[in-house]
């Protein structure tokens, strides 16, 4: 317990101080790492905890980003105010598309979710309802401001993104250690036994999808504000695969694992820019080796801690 607190404290401090030690380029890399970390954490609820093979997470991210972009550019609503709106809309979308497919298992669900992310991307390219700007996307999204302070530089975004990441981690740790979090783990371990123990399996899976989508939608808002331009290509199937890989490689169901995964998959390639075309090869090889030698991920979930009073532990007496 103590050790993890120290590691956690040091990492938090390092992240808080990083912009003072790094140039703008590297701060921007860390911004991307942060966005991917939040997205992967939101996918982790669905994939890591509930064990649902969902490879279409970029669809929810897209819904959030486009909602914020459209409302901001058309009505001039301040972009950060749109975070809850984008989250709710992405959540509603998840509710509608996940409801009919929630009973599918494993590979079947995987294929359908790939279908969802492709449908969303193609719909965006085809300029549905004349709102999405087609293949060019939407530009001119305004910069966010917090209490009158205008966020423009990567260093500013750094604190916005990692602040949101910290809040996400805080809330998800609580969620993990609750009736809801446990129920998802039961479903992942054995659906029939979970149902037989009185757990409403389809309902909980659906809630997992919705929470994951709400978070992805809110992250989409930050992305739109950071880029000021969004286009369908940013929400492709490949993005979903990257998120999926971060969760599996980092450690399914493990919050520290997923964050480490984001650093490795998004941050590390920047370090090896010199290797250029070889880096994807190195990556592929690393992934194959991981799956053979450490298929539970780099940092598997730690056992949960329960405070049980000593008099209850002794037990035996009836």
């Amino acid at each position, binding site marked *: 317990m103590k050790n993890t607190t120290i590691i956690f404290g040091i990492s938090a401090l390092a992240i808080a101080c990083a912009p003072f030690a790094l140039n703008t380029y590297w701060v921007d890399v860390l911004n991307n790492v942060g966005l991917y970390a939040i997205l992967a954490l939101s996918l982790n609820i669905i994939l890591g905890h509930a064990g649902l093979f969902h490879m279409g997470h970029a669809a929810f991210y897209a819904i959030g980003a486009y909602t914020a972009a459209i409302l901001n550019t058309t009505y001039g609503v301040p972009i950060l105010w749109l975070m809850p709106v984008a989250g709710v809309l992405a959540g509603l979308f998840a509710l509608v598309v996940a409801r009919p497919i929630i009973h599918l298992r494993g590979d079947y669900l995987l294929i359908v979710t790939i279908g969802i992310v492709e449908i969303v991307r193609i719909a965006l390219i085809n300029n549905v309802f004349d709102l999405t700007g087609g293949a060019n996307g939407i530009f001119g999204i305004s910069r966010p401001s917090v209490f009158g302070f205008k966020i423009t530089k990567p260093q500013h975004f750094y604190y916005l993104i990692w602040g949101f990441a910290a809040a996400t981690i805080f*809330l998800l740790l*609580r*969620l993990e*250690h*609750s*009736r*809801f*979090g*446990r*129920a998802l*783990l*039961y479903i992942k*371990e*054995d659906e*029939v*036994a*979970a*149902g*037989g*123990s*009185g*757990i*409403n*399996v389809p309902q909980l899976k659906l*809630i997992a999808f919705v*929470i994951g989508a709400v978070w992805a939608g809110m992250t989409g808002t930050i992305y739109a504000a950071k880029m000021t331009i969004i286009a369908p290509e940013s929400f492709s199937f490949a993005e979903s695969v990257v998120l999926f890989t971060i969760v599996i490689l980092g450690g399914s169901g493990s919050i520290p694992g997923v964050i480490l995964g984001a650093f490795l998959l998004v941050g590390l390639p920047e370090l090896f820019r010199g290797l250029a075309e070889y880096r994807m090869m190195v990556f592929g090889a690393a992934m194959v080796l991981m799956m053979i030698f450490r298929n539970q991920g780099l940092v598997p979930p730690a*056992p*949960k801690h*329960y*405070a*049980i009073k000593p008099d*209850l*532990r*002794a*037990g*035996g*007496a*009836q």
Partner: protein
Amino acid sequence: MNLLRVENLTKSFGGLMAVNEVSFAVEAGSIVGLIGPNGAGKTTVFNLITGNYQPNAGTVDFDGVSLVGLPTHTIVEHGIARTFQTIRLFQNMTVLENTLAGCHCRMRAGALAAMLRTPAQRREEQKALEQAMAELAFVGLAHEWENKAKNLSYGNQRLLEIARALATQPKLIVLDEPAGGMNDQETQELIQLIRNIQHKGITVLLIEHDMGLVMRVCSSLVVLEHGAVIASGTPAEIQANPRVIEAYLGADSE
């Protein structure tokens, strides 16, 4: 008073008639055994009662509620808990977490309450922990609370399934071959445990192959063969019933 009444329950898988017009009743507070040769349809009857299968025909009434068509988790909420013939624990989770699974259906806090960690949510968690530990103590596994389920002995895994079922606070507990894989000593303790469950006011319905156990704990028995009820009555009546003897030992060749 009958707690559970099954009438004309029928289930076929393709051309195979697994359960054919089965009717029986379970009196509140009793221990009833469902016995029969392998393949007689006992587990299928259990799965029909607990909603894992849907019957082709027939009714299941429990405490004034018709259970046919209800999903498994709703049936658990109505007060029927079960164990599985092939142990189905959450193998990579601890003994305590397995038992907490049973508490789930009596808890209310959702995802939002968990994120906000409301006082009601914290109270509920604490109560669930205490209840889960109490159920573990009841089956004699409290000292194993931190162990992973997969590290328990076979007999203890069966006990953990019972603890998880009890944590749902059932009116009726349905045990599918609870003594399977247990040694004599463990079976003796199981008999005592089943009696203790009855003393708690919980009705017991069990499938069992160990005739010694069945004859000692059950107040009445229902015998199935080829998916149909061939006899029912007290253990003494069943032991003397020629059809039951025939089903178990085979008919004379003449």
